[in-house]
């Protein structure tokens, strides 16, 4: 058998299981944190599980563990299908898949042990940063190597997004983590004061932009037309939106620093660019909606389709809410409140997790060697649990955030603050209970999905390895 005539998907299968394991670990950590907010005794005075350590554990495990594994898995899968060629180096791909788990795993343990660079979403200390950078560059070698050896002339739009993810995240990671090592697990950032803050949020928001948006759009642009069984409504719009997106996003980081000691013009530029960003975001959303129109019957035949449809609603919601919250007059209320936390989760759960779930449900039977998922009813249950969970979550945090925002700033006739910090915390407690309940529903959904995928994998054991022959390129499109 000539291996080069078949796609290679074993690393993708491994990464899909890692995605689900990280989703359970990361979401459970999130759930535990939500529980600690209403029952602070739950930290049992154990330093490793206090809020301050568990919180970066949660964010890093869901973003890099869950999100990162899903992105690498789907990038490996997609780039082969859209380039009509086997992965550039399957062995290197496996190394990336395994070392990514090692890097994230070691990093997370170090966070629990209290080693942190204190930069949000970039808390890993320098030795782990170097490991992550090496793995990421190797990921780039596999991806761009496959792209370079492609058999088809056009580069499909998914690959533009995945390519942007790899290049920009490498740049952000290296620049933001530049530090002077003091010991093996201690270093000092090369930036100071306001500059440090600007670089950090240039990284922070573009991690959202390129990791959690560009990468997932790459996933989405492959999955959606495949699920709908028709091409993207407007390919040109997708490419225009890509370039507008890439150009605009890189400016918006300082909207995290409104009314701080950074230059005023920088805040204004960030605010304006955030508003401009609405255009490419919604262009993508409209493209998706129009691509889906006409594929009505797929809802019955494809269990993952409804996840992808709903992910678009949340994508529209989050990409409208984000620019709105970047307006200074809104930000003055919303900043430092739970509104921000709710906004992040409407994007992370409603958009990122939903599109990942939809994609994995779509890919799993193909990769595991079965005709369909183990139990379609469980997919439905997962869908409703996840939807109810995320809605309860964000509605509760809207209530909490607006109450907090008003109370933070409320003054009496003498100009003194009306409410103390404790007053505001007390008001927040009931909302945090609702959020805990919403988060629990979402978590149970992820557990059900993992079980369903595992059973699907077991059911396909006689049909593996799944060999998919690389189809011939249509005449005229060859490279």
């Amino acid at each position, binding site marked *: 058998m000539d291996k080069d005539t078949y796609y290679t998907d074993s690393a993708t299968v491994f990464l899909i299981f890692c995605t689900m394991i990280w989703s359970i670990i990361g979401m459970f950590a999130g759930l535990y944190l939500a529980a600690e907010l209403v029952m602070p005794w739950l930290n049992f005075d154990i330093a490793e599980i206090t809020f301050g350590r568990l919180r970066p554990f949660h964010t890093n495990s869901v973003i890099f563990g869950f999100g990162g594994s899903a992105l690498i898995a789907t990038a490996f899968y997609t780039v082969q299908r859209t380039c009509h060629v086997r992965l550039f180096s399957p062995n290197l791909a496996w190394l990336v898949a395994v070392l990514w788990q090692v890097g994230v795993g070691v990093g997370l343990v170090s966070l629990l042990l209290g080693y942190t660079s204190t930069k949000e979403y970039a808390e890993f200390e320098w030795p782990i940063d170097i490991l992550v950078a090496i793995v990421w560059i190797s990921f780039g070698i596999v991806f761009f190597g496959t792209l370079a050896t492609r058999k088809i002339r056009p580069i499909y739009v998914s690959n533009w997004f995945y390519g942007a993810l790899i290049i920009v995240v490498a740049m952000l990671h290296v620049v933001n983590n530049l530090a002077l090592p003091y010991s093996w697990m201690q270093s000092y950032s090369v930036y100071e004061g306001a500059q440090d803050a600007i670089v950090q949020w240039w990284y922070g928001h573009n991690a959202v932009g390129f990791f959690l948006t560009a990468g997932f759009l790459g996933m989405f642009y492959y999955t959606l037309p495949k699920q709908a069984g028709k091409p993207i409504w407007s390919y040109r719009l997708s490419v225009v939106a890509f370039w507008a997106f890439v150009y605009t996003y890189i400016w918006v980081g300082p909207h995290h620093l409104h009314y701080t000691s950074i230059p005023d013009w920088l805040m204004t530029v960030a605010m304006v660019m955030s508003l401009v960003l609405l255009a490419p975001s919604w262009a993508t959303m409209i493209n998706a909606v129009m691509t889906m129109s006409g594929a009505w019957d797929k*809802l019955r035949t494809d269990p993952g389709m409804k996840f992808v449809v709903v992910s678009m609603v949340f994508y529209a919601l989050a990409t409208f809410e984000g620019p709105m919250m970047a307006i200074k007059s809104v930000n003055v*209320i919303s900043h430092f409140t739970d509104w921000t936390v709710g906004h992040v989760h409407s994007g992370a759960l409603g958009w990122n997790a939903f599109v990942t779930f939809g994609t994995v449900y779509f890919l799993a039977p193909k990769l595991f060697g079965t005709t369909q998922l183990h139990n379609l009813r469980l997919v439905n249950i997962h869908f409703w649990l996840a939807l109810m969970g995320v809605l309860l979550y964000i509605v509760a945090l809207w209530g909490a955030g607006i109450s907090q925002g008003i109370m933070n700033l409320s003054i009496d006739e003498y100009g003194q603050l009306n409410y103390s910090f404790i007053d505001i915390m007390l008001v927040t407690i*009931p909302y945090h209970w609702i959020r805990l309940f919403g988060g629990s529903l979402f978590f149970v959904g992820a557990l059900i999905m993992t079980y369903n995928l595992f059973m699907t994998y077991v059911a396909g054991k006689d049909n593996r390895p799944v060999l998919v022959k690389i189809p011939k390129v249509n005449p005229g499109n060859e490279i």
Partner: protein
Amino acid sequence: MTKDVISRLSKANYSPAQLFFGYSIWLGLVPPVSAFFGTYYNGWSLGISDPIKLSFSQSLAISIFYALALIVGFLVTAFVIKWMATVYAPESTLNDAFAVVSVVGTPIMLAGVVHLYPSVLLHIIVLSPIFAWSCYILFCALPILLKIDNDRGIFMGCAVLGFLVTAFLALLGISTIAWVYGIGPNLGV
């Protein structure tokens, strides 16, 4: 039962004006009237300390604007549904779009009674299930009233829901900007 009621409505003869002036506008008065009595007599409660009471004229002005916003919101949503129907349900009419907004809005408008006791937490607790119910009605009503199959109804329901949530967020943003510029609560900004 919900589906039976919607089916009966789909068979009834009415014009958009009849539906709007004969039913929806009266129902739409429940939230603003409740809000007026709530803000004037009880005051907005954030869950701690004294509630924020507004004067008679301020409460009245806010309630009038609220009523206008609901009316405009009703009409805009109906026209947006009609516009979306060009993709999802080309056969449907403006009547159908008005009917969808009326049935979906009914539980929410009735739940506007909660404004009589304006506590943010109470609103979240009462309105969350009501919104969930309205969502259910939306997904039931679209296929029946617009005469399309269920699959199309789900796609269109998602699109309408996306519009409604975005509109809600836009209102929240506008309110926030209004507060910062001195309309509403006394904030130190």
